[in-house]
Structure formats: C-alpha cells, structure tokens
C-alpha cells in the first residue's frame, strides 16, 4: 500500500488497461475503449447512462473527460460490437450487455475480434495476444497463418461470425422511397401524448456540423428526427411531426430496422431526408498518411452497419475537422464511395 501521485495513478491505470503509458493516456481512444470494456465487464447488464457515470467517476480524479466524450465512446464500442445494446421486452428501456467473444475473418489472414467476458480477463489465446492491434475502438489481428489462428480462436471459445451476417445492411433503395415509408407510418401513428424535452435535428441547418443541427422544439412545424425524454432512462429516438411547436404525430425507433439500435435507424432516416431535401450529407476524401491509402471524413454519425463495413475493409482513424474518419487502401476508393452513396445517400464533397 502506498500513496501515489495523479500522474502515477494515470500511468498505472493505462498500464493495467494494456497500454504503454509513455505513448497513451486516458484520453487516447484505445485506452478509453479498453476502460469501457473493463467497466462493462464488471457492471453489465446496465443502462448506458449508468455505464457512463461509472467510467466518468473513475476518470474524474485523473483527467478531464467530458461526459459526452465517454458517452460517445460507449456508442462506438457498441457500434463496433464489443457490447450489445438491447431493448427490454415490452419496455422503452435499453440495456447494455456484453457481447460474447467472437471474430470475423475479413481477409485470409485478417481478423476483427469482438466481445468482453464477465471478469474482464482477455479471452484471446496468449500466443496471439502480442499480434492483436488496438485501432481506435477495434481490435485487429493480422495472423501469420489464417487457418491456424482461426482454429486457435475457436478452441479458446470465440464464436466465428459469418461475414455476411455481421455485415448485414438494410437493402438499397432510393432515398425518397425510404423516407416515404416513415412518412406513411407517421401518418398512421396514434396519439403522441405530450412528449417532454423534445430536441430535434433542424433539416435546414448545415449538414457539415452535426451538433449544430440540434435544437429544442419551440415553434417549429414539419417532420423531424428527434429525441424526447422519458421518465427514467435515456432519451428516446423518434420521428415526429410538429405544428407550431406542438407534436401532432410521433413514431419511436427502432421501427423498421429492428436488427440495429434506435439511433442507427434515426441517423439512417436523417441521411435519407437530407438527400431528399437536396442537402445530402457529405463525405470528404483526402490522401492517407501511409502510401496507397485514403481517408474518408464524415460529418454526421453513421449507423453501426456502416461502421462495421468500414472497420472490415479499412480502419477507424483520428478525425480531422470531421466527426468520424476511416482510412482505406486506395483500391477500395470506388467501392466505398459507392457504398456511402448507395446505402446512405452521402455525396462526395
């Protein structure tokens, strides 16, 4: 037992999470993701709010980390697949659970690893631990021999996920049809009651600045992707119609895309609505730091199925003047631009 300084406590924590304190601190996305996984291993199933509060409580004496940063990081860990957000049956409440250790073989010798085990021990076979690479929220394994690595992972209890199942996406349809499905459903929605604390995405605000698009419901009229508070638990994602600031119709997510989170469906709908409104969300392409790579910058959140796709063909990287960035090999340029455009109606800016 000994008294230590804040710097020593930070280093010790970073080292406990498996990183070298000379290169990483608790703000490093990889370390923050590892801490989230460790906390989840102790306390899941629990709500995202509770997980956020616990992580914040552990970090507060050591570093200044905004609550939103932690909350967003949890969303990213969920989107990647280490944790699973599941709506309770017959309730609007969602809980965060651990995802079981599993892997996807994205190429002959390349694997993505997912999942957390209850006491937070690393389930990866020891001989493979040194080749696991932590990239932002993902854990990647570049194997010497793909088949023997796959066998070792299976023997260690990892489940093999079928790429087609893990990369499952909603079907490709034109944006206006996509929006019309929701508009129709909204027309048939019942009495919305009096939703409280409604915030919404203002379609007219610039698509390049996501957080700037959010506004409180005041006197707006129209249809909006929105969030509304509930008596307890996280705010719900909704699609609503308002007249002069009064909600007249309301639809809660998930509605059609039950396989994914509510936010995924809401973001997907917003992408379609922006496209239909003639103000499509955009992505930017720039050369990567490494030779023969390019970086795709995105300015609004993307659904988990898109994150998975891009984690499998590329890798997440630090965002630069954007919300999210991915780096890809240059030969993927056309196919990923097409994916962004066909599936999410994003346009290259």
């Amino acid at each position: 037992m000994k008294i230590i300084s804040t710097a020593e406590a930070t280093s010790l924590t970073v080292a406990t999470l498996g990183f070298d304190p000379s290169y990483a601190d608790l703000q490093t996305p990889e370390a923050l993701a590892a801490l989230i996984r460790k906390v989840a291993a102790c306390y899941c199933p629990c709500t995202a709010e509770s997980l956020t509060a616990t992580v914040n409580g552990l970090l507060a004496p050591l570093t200044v980390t905004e609550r939103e940063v932690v909350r967003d990081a949890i969303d990213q860990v969920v989107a990647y697949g280490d944790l699973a957000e599941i709506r309770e049956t017959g309730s609007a409440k969602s809980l965060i659970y651990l995802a079981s250790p599993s892997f996807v073989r994205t190429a002959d010798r390349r694997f993505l690893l997912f999942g957390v085990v209850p006491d937070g021990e690393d389930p990866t076979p020891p001989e493979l631990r040194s080749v696991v690479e932590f990239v932002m929220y993902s854990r990647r394994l570049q194997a010497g021999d793909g088949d023997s690595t796959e066998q070792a992972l299976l023997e260690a209890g990892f489940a093999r996920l079928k790429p087609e199942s893990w990369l499952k996406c909603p079907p490709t349809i034109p944006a206006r049809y996509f929006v019309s499905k929701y508009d129709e459903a909204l027309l048939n929605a019942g009495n919305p009651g009096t939703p409280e604390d409604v915030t919404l995405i203002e379609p007219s605000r610039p698509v390049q600045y996501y957080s700037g698009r959010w506004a409180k419901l005041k006197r707006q009229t129209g249809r909006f992707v929105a969030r509304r508070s509930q008596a307890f638990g996280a705010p719900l994602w909704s699609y609503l119609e308002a007249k002069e600031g009064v909600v007249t119709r309301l639809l809660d997510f998930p509605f059609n895309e039950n396989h994914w989170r509510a936010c995924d469906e809401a973001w997907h709908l917003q992408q379609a609505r922006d496209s239909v409104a003639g103000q499509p969300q955009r992505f930017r392409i720039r050369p990567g730091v490494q030779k023969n790579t390019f970086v795709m910058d995105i300015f609004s959140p993307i659904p988990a199925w898109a994150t998975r796709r891009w984690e499998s063909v590329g890798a997440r990287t630090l965002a630069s003047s954007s919300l999210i960035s991915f780096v890809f090999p240059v030969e993927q340029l056309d196919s990923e631009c097409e994916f962004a455009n066909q599936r999410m109606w994003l346009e290259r800016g």
Partner: protein
Amino acid sequence: MTLNVWQERLDSHFAQVHEQRRTPVTTHSALYALEHGLSADEVDQLKADVLDWVKNSGPSRRHFSVWAVYSAEVGYQYSGEEYWATFGALTPNWQDCNSNRDHIRDCFREFHRKYGAAKPYGPWADHFRIICWPITHAILPQDLQRELAYVLYELRGSFTPALLRDSELLGRRIEDASWNSRARFRQFAEHHLLVGQIATALLLTEDDKDKALILPTTLNRIARDLDKNQRSREWLGDARKRANQVRIRGLSHTTGESQFEAVSATGAVLSPRHREVLELGIEPDVFLERTGPDSWSTRLHLPSLAPLVQRFPRLRDVIANQRCVVTGAKGGPLPRGYLLYGTQTVTLSRWPSSDEVLLKFDNFDSELAYLLTMECLLRPGPTWLFKIGPDGATATHIKTGIVQPGTDYILTARSGTHLPHSTLNSSGATVDCEGICAIRLTVPDVITKIFQEQLNNLSISTSSEIRVAPVGVPARNWDDSGTAEWLSTDTPLIRISATFEIEGIILNLVGPTSNKLELNRSTPWPLLVNLERLDPGVYNLHVLVSRPQNPAPTFGRLQFTIREPKRWTGSFPTATPFSANISPAAPTMEDLWEEKAAVELSGPPDRKAEGSLAFYRNSKNIYEHSFGPLDLPCSPGHWLEHWQAITANKSVENAYDASSECELTISCEELGTFRVRAIRDPKPVRWVVKQKNSGYFLKLELLDEQVQLALGRYSFRSPVEFAQLRENAFCEFRVSEDGGLFAATADQFRDAVIIPPAIHSFKWLAAEVKMPQMPRSEGSLGEIVSALEIWCRARAVGSQFAVDRKSAAIKALESELVRLVCGDEWLRHEESSRNSSLAFSDLKNFISASLKHSSLSRDISIKQESLRSSSVEELIDSLDWLARSHLDLPVFSTARDHGVSRQKWLTEFVYRLFLSPQHIRKWASNDFVPAVGYVLKNSVLVRLVRVVYLISQMPQLNDVQCKAATI
C-alpha cells in the same frame, strides 16, 4: 526383444521402484504400470513385440508386467467407455473373449501382489471389474487431463500451504470441485490420494519434481501431454503460479496459514467458517427496478452457488439435483441446478421476514441450511435503503444504511410506522411487494441538523466526511457505502478525500496481507492510494483521520474482498443478451435423450439461435446434426418440441446409440454460445438400437466382464408381465412389430429400452394398457414398484409412439398403485375429479368417512394455497402436523428405530411413494417392506398424503418443464 526379456527388465525396474517406496514406509507408496520408466521409442518397441506375440499365441501370465504396461498404455490413450474396442483396434489378432479379458485382470492382480501396485476401488471399480485395472494404471488418461487442469485452475483461489502439502486433502477438494465435470472424471476424482498426488506433482516447480510421489519421467510425460493443449496449459500455468505464491507465503509463516481477525459489514468479528462463507460471495442482492414514475418492483439477484459447491462438495447433490423455492418469489420452484449457472434474477412478491432463509431446497440438509443462514438472509430491518442509480431505472441496496448528500433513495420498511410521515424532502413511492411500504428520500446537498436527526431516527446515518472511491481501475463491485470487491489480477487504486482540514491520517489494512501507513499533514490531499496486488481474501481498510484542534479522530472503514477472476470457458453465456439454463446442471446423455433435462433460452425476440448436436465415439466426431433457427426466448416447452423433432431424426437416433458422448451447442452469434457436453452414464451393459430397413434392430453390448444376464420383454398391453427373450441378444436381431420394453438385468445393473410398435392402422395409434387388478398385498405393491422402476428408467427410442407407450404404461402402473394403497372407491373419485365430474376441492371429503376426521378437510382447505408453493420439506412438515392433529395412527417402528421421528419418516415415505415411486425402494432401503405393510393398513393417512400431493402438483400441471422431469 522377446517378452521374457521385457518381463525381466520391467520386473527389475518395478522391484526397484517398489523398494524405494517402501522405505520409509508411507501410506502413499502405490505404484502404477504407467511408471514403467521406458522412453517413447521403447514403448513403441514393447507394443510391437506384444503384437508379434499375439500373432502366434495368447497372453501368458508369466509376462504379467508386460501385459500390465501394455494395457495401461492402451488405457492412457483411450477415451469414452469402450476400452475393449480400443484394445482390439490397437491389438490386431487379439481374441476378445472372456478368458483373455480375465487374463488381463489376473496380470494386474499379480502386479499388485508382487509390487504393491495400485488396486482400484470405489463404485466405478465395482461396476467395471476388469477395465478398472488398466485405466487406473494409466494414471491420468489423456481425455481427463484437460479436466484436471481446469479443476486445478478453478481451485487455485483456495490453495493454502496445508492443502498443497496434503495430497489426500487436495484430492478431496478436487473431487468436490469436479461436480460439473464429466462422469468419468468424477469417477477418477473419487481416488483422492491418487488424484491429489498427480495434482501436487503437476503443481510442483521443476526443482521440486524429485519430491513427486510419481516417477518423474511419468510425471513429465503427463505434464508434456497436458501442455500440448493450449487451454490446459494456460489453466495449469495459472494454477502453478498461484501454488507457487502460496508456497512461498506458506514458508514465511511458521503456522502455515495467515491469521487475522475479519469483521463483518456490521462490525462483528467473523468466525473462521463465516469468513469462509463470506469469501464465497453468495449473499443474494435485493434491488428495486422502476416500473413507473413512482413505482418500483422488488428484484433479487441470486448468486451462483457453484463456489459453495466447490468449497462444500457434499452439498453438490442437493444443489444440483433438488428444486429450490425462493422465499417470497413469484412462480413455482426453480428447476434443479438452476443456481449453478451464474447469477439469476427473480421478482419478489412478498418481502421475506428477517429470519427466513431465502433459498429452500426440496430436501432438508442441515449443513446447507446452516451455511445458508450465514449469508442467504435479507439484512435485518427495520428499514432498507436503496440508492437510485444515475439512470433512475434501478435502485441498489445500501447495506450499511449510509446516505450521501445530493442523492436520491428509496427507503422501505415493513410498516408505515417505521417511515417518516412529515420528513422534509420525502415523497410517496410504491413498491409492488407484499409486506413492505416505501418512500422516496431526497438527501439535500447540505444536510441540516434537523434532517440529520430525522435520518438517525430511521437508523440511517450520513456518510462520514471522509469519502473513498475507486480510481482508474474499476472495482468488480462497489456500493459507494463501504463495501467493495476487486479481482486478484487488479491493482486497486482508491481516492480518499475529506471535507475538512487534516492533521494526520492512519491507513490500516487488515487481511491476508496487512499493511499500515501513517501520514502527516504534509501529504498532498486528496490521497491517491495504490493498494497494490493483494492475495484473495477479505480485507478491512481502517481510515483514522485526526483534525487540528480536535482530539476526537474521525473513523472510516472500507471492507472489501479480493477474489480470483472467474475463467471464461466459452460454454456458458454470462452477462450477454442471450442466455441459457439447463436443469440438471450436468446432464448425462440419457438425461438429454429422455427429456429429463429442461432447457430454457433467453434472448432478444428479434434474434434467432441456431444449434448443433454432435456425437462422439472414442473422442471422434461420428455425426453432427444442425438445427434451427430457434425463436427467442425459448421456453422449456418450446425447447421440448424442438428436441423431439431433433431426436425423431433416424440418423440422430442411430448416432445416439453408437456414441458415448454428445455435445449440444446453441449459438446466437455474437450474443453468446451455450455448450453442454454430456456423457453416457457408464453402465457395463447396454442395448444398442439401430433403425434400418423400416425396422428396429437390437444388440446387447457388454462393456467389461461377461456376466450372467436375465433378458426379457415386457409388452405394452400388460406392463407388469415379463417374458424371457428367445433371441441371442449379443447378435443384432430384428424386433418384432409389436415392440415392447426390452430389459437386460445382471446382479447390479439393468438397461432397458422401449421400442415402438409398427403402426399399420389408426387402431394401433391408441396406447391401450390392460392392467389386471392385483390383490391388495405387500407383494403386489412391490411388484408395481419394480415395474415402475423398469418403465420409468427405460429409454424410449424411435418415435413419439415409444414415448406415448411408455407414458401410458407408467400412468396405468401409477393408477394401480393408487388403487392398491388408497382403495378402489378413491381411485374412482380421483378419476371423476380428473374428468371434472367431481370438483377437485371435494376430493378431500373422501379421505375418511369417519366423523372424527371431519375437521381435516377444513384444515387442508386453509393450508391449500401455501401447500402449492411449499418445498418437499415444508410439505412433509405440514402433513406431519395434519396427521398428528387429526389421525390417531398406530405407531410405526422398526427394529432399529422408534418414536415420533419414525412417524414423520413414514409420512414422507407415503409422499415419496406418489412423488417418485421408481426411487422409493432405494430411498427407504431396508425399511421398504415394513413401510409398505403399514401403508396398506392405514389408508386414511395414505389418502391424506395423496390429496396433499395432488395439491402440491397443481400449479405445475401445465408446466412442461416439470412434465419433462417426470416422464
């Protein structure tokens, strides 16, 4: 080399080893054939020479050591149940006959006589009287090595210097911890000394191997083979690491064990037993779940009792095989083994009293009851405090009753008088649980003196001005009010802060590793304390703070547990959205097959699960069947429908009969996988069924000694009548179209299968049983019980028709049993109540026609509701009370025992006669015959028990899960 030369060489080697083990004389001097001291090449040469010998001649007794070594080598490689099949496959030209098998046993007997070699013992050795020798002398066959490594890994947290010094004790602990292992490993673990010796040897460091009780070369060979499997290597590596730490620590203590005084959360000094139970972490955790703006439901997290079973193995049978009632919980009893798979959550509809143990198992076990009274009670009231979480969705129980400023709580009490009526900052709250009421308490940021006094009146205190919180690394459990848990692999960091000026501070850590720090005012504040890696155990960190100009120091205490992390095996999903339960916890193949194992799957309704059933023979996968998708959640009833579809598949059925092991896997992709491996209950006699050419073929396999058997057939029409089997059962024969129950019986074993009839017309669909009415005698009752023993345990194969025929036969036999013990008239009344021409509530009026028993019916009515949810133990108590209060019964006594307890025993006998007639003879043992005689003479008691039995079964009549267990 000739076998004579080999014999000479081995004789000389074993004689030398035998001599070394005799001096000094110890009890641990057994010698094993695997300790032959030969290199791998020499073993190959010996095998080749044996094969050469067998080409021209049979085994000879003068080569007993050679045959013992050869057979043990086969045993080392074999897995599953068919030793002789493996032996035959590895030994071409071997004549597999009775005399040759006997010869192998004779060689081992000689080996034992001459060199004091190990002699097998225990129930398994009694059943498999020949193959027990080579398998025991294989020491640790390869298929059991992984399981030993896993059990040692699981046990590592309880290693002590004393345990590592005592092989017998370590062996006992291994047996205790192997409750969830396969039957073969459990049998192996019955040899405490042997298993303890092997384990000790495997845990030794290289330097210590000379001290091993097994020849170092043999030990190295086992360790090498164990290391070939990556997971075994990891498990053993961790266990060794821990053993080493313990050994080093043990050396530094003259007493061998560290002594310290542990205190409970309430400050009381704990007895060593209590401390041991506390370290297991089995206290149920009550919490509230929000159901509306001001309404809450009461939930109870039930911990896994696996650590309790590991520590107190004798309790395995009760916890794994008995149903369990949760006091105050909604619904019926929990299925068997339910509490061995991680944490379970139930809803409380009634708040238990402070002295009510929360878990009640069907069979009363005084040791279990005693242990459960230590940790399995709700904390005594009068109030219970729950802190509302940051998400507002749940409220956790604060055991210390300490509130913190700026936090919201729900305060519950048995009656409103214990709750404040006019406290500031309280508002109404409702809890959906009978026996408690609640308020919501908002503790302000600044606590006034008045508020403080009001809290004190409610037995609530405010947190001291010293606050402790984990930093950086999360605690596995943290209640914010003085109790915590970390893993032994963590380095706990805490932050200690105070709201006042500090003069000095003393930190005193008391536990298996103790430490003390004294700090003065120059220490920067708040403190960040690195508790460093700690050994598993219960610790108390006492914080004593002195303030300037204040002679009274401020105290604080953090009680925490350090425990080993639980290894993730990939077989059971925990904390994932997909989860599975299987009851019993470690089913045999027969349990699965005969639908005695209830499976329940939970998961998000928009996801589906997929499964596979793989069959193994001698560790080789012989067939795999995929099934699904399964809708989630999947109740035991739905599972049964899926399972029946799976087992109706002809290829699956054939694979079942040809295999000795199967693995059931149900996967929900990234949400989790559930995997259970089941082994065939090892029996030396077994029917093998094959479906081909639109018919059924039977063959009897004798897996060890070729003993005298009684072979017979029971027909579906008359399930008590036995006819000798005319066919030669050792050669495959075609079963006649009318099917039936085929039984093979030796002295101690029986195997029975039910083959369905061929259905040629609708007329054959009906399962018609013609049960002759038997005279009311002890003999008849004994005959019915024997028939039920056979029919209930027989395996129904082929199609649903076999299951239907089996059910019909059992139903007819049970009905005849009721007629014999309760009377013809009673049976008619029972049938009338079943077809609703008589109200069930009126049945109790027919217990006795005597006027003096008229109030019996009323008392049953009063107790009816509680009887429905009672455990067996409670039912027996109620029955005993009813019988003593209303019936004037003759004394039941046997030569060895008399008195009131025998009367209660008799009541339980009658209850169990209805509950599971197929087990009653074993349960009653020597008292079966006198009890049957008593039962036939006292039908009023029997009818009383029958009514209570029917009442207790009522809530479960529609429960397929229980139906599955009864069929």
